């Protein structure tokens, strides 16, 4: 009964989304106030219907209703409650419902928070969001019904893929989708602007919070996924340039570029056409990721169970939305006059450089991800593009990006001089040089990590220099506190986000110095790695709620003193008949001691031991970046939409 209500709610949502797509767009075109005013209530109704469907799905999973086929395939009564809930979105059908729920939430947010948007623009944005929802709701109803019944119901479900039974992964998809779907809002703003044929400073100001929110969620989502891969897959790495990871990185890169170019639109009314294009592309990349993951054209560890028929449908959606947006772009954008002249060396110039570099990175990642597929299709060649390609192609783009990142915020608008900026950054440069020198002295001739430490010091130092300069700590120390309090939160947010990237790079540089060792040990034997003594004490059986395991106890000592006792496991999940490795990690924040238990043979256990310096900082940095985004989002200028005419004074 509940499942049928859920199914009906989805159908109702489709009808409401269709109305939300058609009526406001029509009303905006004809100037009919009643149709324009219908946008908000329709978006609210659409949200309620999708929320009801999602609640019904959660209910089916929590009560383990085995007459619902999706529950049978993805759940089991012995699973902890958290994983029953996350099981609801840990599969293709359920994750699509989550996707449309977040899309409807975005629509509701535009309707709720966008009261000071001009009515026509708001109607058009909601109309485009409704149109996007129509496609995905139709996709769910036509090919991926999450509420299908099975008769007779089996006594219990088959369980969720055990590798996904993890708190990190329970929250990874919702955060990622908040990011992906958040770009649907910027897409809708871009399409609305193209329909109106007008992009101005006000448009930039309205788009930016959405771009910022989507970016912050996507940053968290990607970081959580990477963290999960680090501790759950047990390979000891944090980023593998896997096509599915790349699919999430693409909208992040485009979205980061969008975030920065929207500032130029807002402050200077320049880069308008470019910003609109980025807004279209950021969502296009989100759709591309959805297509790649769900259609089966990819060969990846994390691809969903796939089906070419669904693939054709998603491809149709991708081509319709992105193609439609870009067709509109090709038609309307040439008429948008470029405005707001600026010198190459200026804040705008810095942001253009940022955009060029980020988009080049996106092009590299896109090429590297899609090339093997197209080579297979067109040339019949199986090639694989791996980390060496990405690392060598990204590095030359990352170096100038990092260099410019610290200097950019210190440049004034319109026209700048390099010398005063360098004067304020000399000590950050000194810090960077010291960091590189220290790394070379301590770790030997390792160029990559040394470069990473220098970049991290430069970024963190640069962000600090920016803040200190703005609050004039050294010039007028007495007024610094009040200036700090008066500094716009957007400025704090930018500095913190930039420093956050520095922290992440610090972690990546540390991981560049990671060492590992594979050892087959009898209980009582030990090996040395990175100045630690790793002793295998015993291997024994262990039991959990829906698994049994072999658990090793590894004592790590340094100079005779015990540092940590690690308990890596190999878990066997009888319901899914799968084995997973549970890496044991002890972190001191400066270093991760990481152990993985492998096969056992004749009393000896194979252990893979890793010494990962600074590893947690990678994800800590991402959290700091998202925090910066959130802080910037809470800026008064965003919350209280000031009248569009007057531009804020340029901060000195």
């Amino acid at each position, binding site marked *: 009964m509940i499942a049928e209500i859920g199914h009906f709610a989805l159908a109702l949502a489709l009808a409401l989304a269709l109305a939300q797509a058609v009526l406001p767009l029509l009303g905006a075109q004809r100037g009919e106030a009643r149709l324009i005013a219908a946008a908000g209530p329709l978006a609210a109704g659409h949200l309620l219907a999708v929320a009801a469907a999602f609640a019904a799905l959660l209910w089916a999973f929590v009560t383990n209703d085995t007459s619902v086929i999706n529950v049978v395939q993805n759940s089991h009564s012995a699973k902890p409650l958290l994983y029953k809930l996350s099981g609801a979105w840990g599969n293709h059908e359920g994750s699509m419902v989550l996707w449309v729920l977040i899309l409807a939430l975005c629509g509701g947010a535009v309707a709720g928070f966008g009261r000071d948007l001009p009515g026509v623009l708001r109607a058009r944005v909601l109309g485009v969001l409704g149109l996007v929802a129509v496609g995905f709701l139709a996709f769910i109803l036509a090919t991926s019904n999450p509420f299908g019944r099975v008769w007779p119901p089996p006594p219990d479900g088959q369980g969720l893929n055990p590798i996904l039974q993890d708190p990190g992964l329970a929250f990874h998809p919702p955060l990622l989708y908040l990011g992906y779907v958040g770009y649907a809002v910027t897409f809708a703003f871009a399409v609305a602007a193209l329909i109106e044929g007008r992009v101005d400073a006000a448009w930039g100001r309205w788009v930016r919070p959405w771009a910022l929110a989507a970016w912050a969620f996507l940053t968290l989502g990607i970081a959580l996924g990477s963290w999960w891969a680090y501790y759950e897959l047990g390979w000891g790495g944090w980023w593998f340039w896997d096509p599915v990871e790349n699919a999430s990185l693409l909208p992040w890169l485009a979205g980061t570029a969008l975030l920065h170019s929207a500032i130029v639109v807002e402050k200077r009314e320049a880069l308008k056409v470019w910003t609109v294009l980025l807004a279209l592309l950021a969502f296009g990349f989100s759709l591309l990721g959805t297509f790649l993951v769900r259609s089966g054209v990819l*060969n990846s560890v994390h691809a969903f169970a796939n089906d070419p028929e669904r693939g054709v449908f998603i491809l149709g959606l991708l081509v319709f939305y992105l193609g439609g947006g*870009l067709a509109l772009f090709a038609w309307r954008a040439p008429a948008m006059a470029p405005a707001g002249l600026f010198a190459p060396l200026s804040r705008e110039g810095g942001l253009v450089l940022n955009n060029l570099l980020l988009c080049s990175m996106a092009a590299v990642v896109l090429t590297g991800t899609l090339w093997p597929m197209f080579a297979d299709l067109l040339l019949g060649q199986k090639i694989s593009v791996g980390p060496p390609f990405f690392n060598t192609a990204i590095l030359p783009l990352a170096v100038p990006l990092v260099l410019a990142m610290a200097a950019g915020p210190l440049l004034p608008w319109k026209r700048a001089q390099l010398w005063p900026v360098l004067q304020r950054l000399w000590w950050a440069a000194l810090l960077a040089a010291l960091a590189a020198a220290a790394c070379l002295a301590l770790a030997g001739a390792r160029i990559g990590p040394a470069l990473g430490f220098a970049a991290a010091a430069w970024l963190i130092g640069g962000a600090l220099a920016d803040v200190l300069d703005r609050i004039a700590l050294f010039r007028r120390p007495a007024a610094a506190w009040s200036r700090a309090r008066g500094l716009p939160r957007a400025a704090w947010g930018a500095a913190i986000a930039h420093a956050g990237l520095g922290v992440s790079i610090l972690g990546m540089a540390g991981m560049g110095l990671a060492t590992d060792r594979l050892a087959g040990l009898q209980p009582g034997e030990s090996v040395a790695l990175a100045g630690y003594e790793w002793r295998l004490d015993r291997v024994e059986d262990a039991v959990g709620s829906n698994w049994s395991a072999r658990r090793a106890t590894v004592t790590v000592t340094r100079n005779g003193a015990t540092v940590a006792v690690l308990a890596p496991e190999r878990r066997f999940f009888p319901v899914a008949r799968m084995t997973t490795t549970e890496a044991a990690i002890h972190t001191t924040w400066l270093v991760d001691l990481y152990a993985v238990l492998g096969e056992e043979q004749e009393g000896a256990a194979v252990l893979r031991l890793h010494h990962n310096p600074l590893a947690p900082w990678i994800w800590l940095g991402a959290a700091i970046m998202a925090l910066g985004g959130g802080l910037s989002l809470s800026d008064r200028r965003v919350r209280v939409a000031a009248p569009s005419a007057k531009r804020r004074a340029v901060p000195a």
Partner: protein
Amino acid sequence: MNRRLLMLAPLGLVAAGGAGFYAMLRGLGDGSYDPRGVPSALLGRATPAFSLPALEEGAPPLTEAALRGLPAPVLVNFWASWCVPCIVEHPQLMRLAREGVTILGINYKDRPADARAFLQRHGNPFRQLAQDAPGRVAIDWGVYGVPESYLIDRQGIVRWRWPGPVTPEVLEQDIRPLLRRHA
């Protein structure tokens, strides 16, 4: 004008990409595009040298010489009694054997007694049967896992590799055309 063309470029890229993806999806449907399949390094080359003891005691060992200068192409099948998909493919192998196709079996990481029991129960399609208990030869051939089949032409060149069970579809769509082509 140039500006207008430039703004059409993204649309063109999406159209080209969309067409390519559509071709991939079509290929997935009819089997001509398979992102997971990895071609065998042996394709188009002679089989590596090997010598394996026969499963039956006293029978001569199986060597690469058995795969040279043949009257007809042969199928080499890696299998094990503990492997469930091997039971799935067994009727197809039996059918081929009844039709006169030579199938050479390599029993992979198995106990001879278990292998014999398996063949007694399900029938023996193999003209010759060798055992690779340590799995060394399987490594040389690049075997993913059992079951796995190779088609060797009359000159002893590997023409086809199939990692997985020989289902009726594989039999009709792959093996029969290949047998005709290399006859």
